[in-house]
């Protein structure tokens, strides 16, 4: 497994997720992550790089989106397509969205930070608080009095 990691043309980086799965990823993809880049600069590259804060299913998603993002460069249609995928994910599985966002933040991948942040922003935009709560499973824990106070404090935003 490690023998491929030293080839010069298409270097492979080996990473291990928090749940012990081992991934072999092209260097160009892995270097999208500033965290992995720093680890490699610190000369951890010949060993398996541990990612104690990312599970395998989420890391798989991260890699997929890194590749998609690389493919879509200068392609407006693909860019639009990728941006619109957030709505679906947030509606069907906000839990995975949160894990993905946290993983992307931890791995420090700028392009995916922008993308996943845009997903949630697009999702929240123009929706009523009631609908947002329902879709994202947010529990309204205000008393009616507290809710009234917040509405009053920024009435302009709720009219």
């Amino acid at each position, binding site marked *: 497994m490690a023998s491929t990691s030293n080839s010069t043309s298409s270097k492979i980086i080996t990473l291990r997720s928090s749940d012990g799965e081992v991934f*072999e990823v092209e260097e160009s993809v892995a270097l999208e992550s500033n965290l992995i880049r720093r680890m490699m600069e610190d000369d951890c590259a010949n060993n398996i790089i541990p990612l104690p804060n990312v599970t395998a299913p989420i890391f798989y998603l991260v890699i997929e989106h890194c590749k998609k993002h690389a493919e879509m460069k200068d392609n407006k249609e693909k860019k639009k397509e990728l941006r619109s995928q957030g709505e679906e994910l947030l509606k069907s599985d906000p839990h995975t969205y949160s894990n993905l966002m946290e993983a992307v933040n931890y791995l420090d991948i700028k392009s995916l930070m922008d993308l996943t942040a845009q997903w949630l922003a697009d999702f929240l935009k123009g929706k009523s608080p009631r609908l947002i709560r329902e879709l994202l499973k947010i529990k309204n824990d205000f008393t009616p009095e507290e809710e009234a106070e917040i509405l009053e404090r920024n009435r302009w935003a709720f009219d």
Partner: protein
Amino acid sequence: MVTMKKKKQACQSAPGSVDLISDLFEDVLNLILVRLPIRDVVRTSILSKKWRDKWISISDLVFDNDCLMEGASEMEHAHVVNQVLKHHVGPICKFSCMFGVPSCSDIDRWVVFLSRNGIKKLTLTTKAYANDVPSSIFYCQELTHLELFYGTLKVPSTFKGFHNLLLLNLCVKISEDAIAFLISKCPLLERLKLKIEDFYQCLNIHAPNLRYFEFSGQF
């Protein structure tokens, strides 16, 4: 290319009833909120107790006609800015006010507040050329971007310079001496756009790092 040593296809999540989004890190949440119109940002405060105060530390505040109340007056818009700034806590990186603010004292109060909160990108629009741009903008020492629309700009002789300013966009009344002085005090300036109301005889610009220059005005 990705290969997984142990193939695992589906991305299983924990039970769908759990709300994790409310617990995202503050800096992550800021990235999300700065992409929303300010109205939607403030509306998140009603979602739950965890969300109540998340909006108050947002780093970018953009007030344009699209994100405020349709058909509202400029006075009402200014009231909204007052409300938002009154509650805001923490550093503010960007502040854009795209509607013509009728009251100079409002602008002055905002700019003093922003100057104490590390403002870096500032866009202000005054109501008319006759209104003075408050000299408090010269307190904003950390500015990298400054855009001023309308108003009359006077540069105090004690002005020490914007040492980090990269972009300057002025559409104001300003004397040729004042503008030459202002620009000479911005050593890193790279982009300069001037739309000047006054007639100039001669414009001296000393900006060793200038890469883009656009001028509209009359000599």
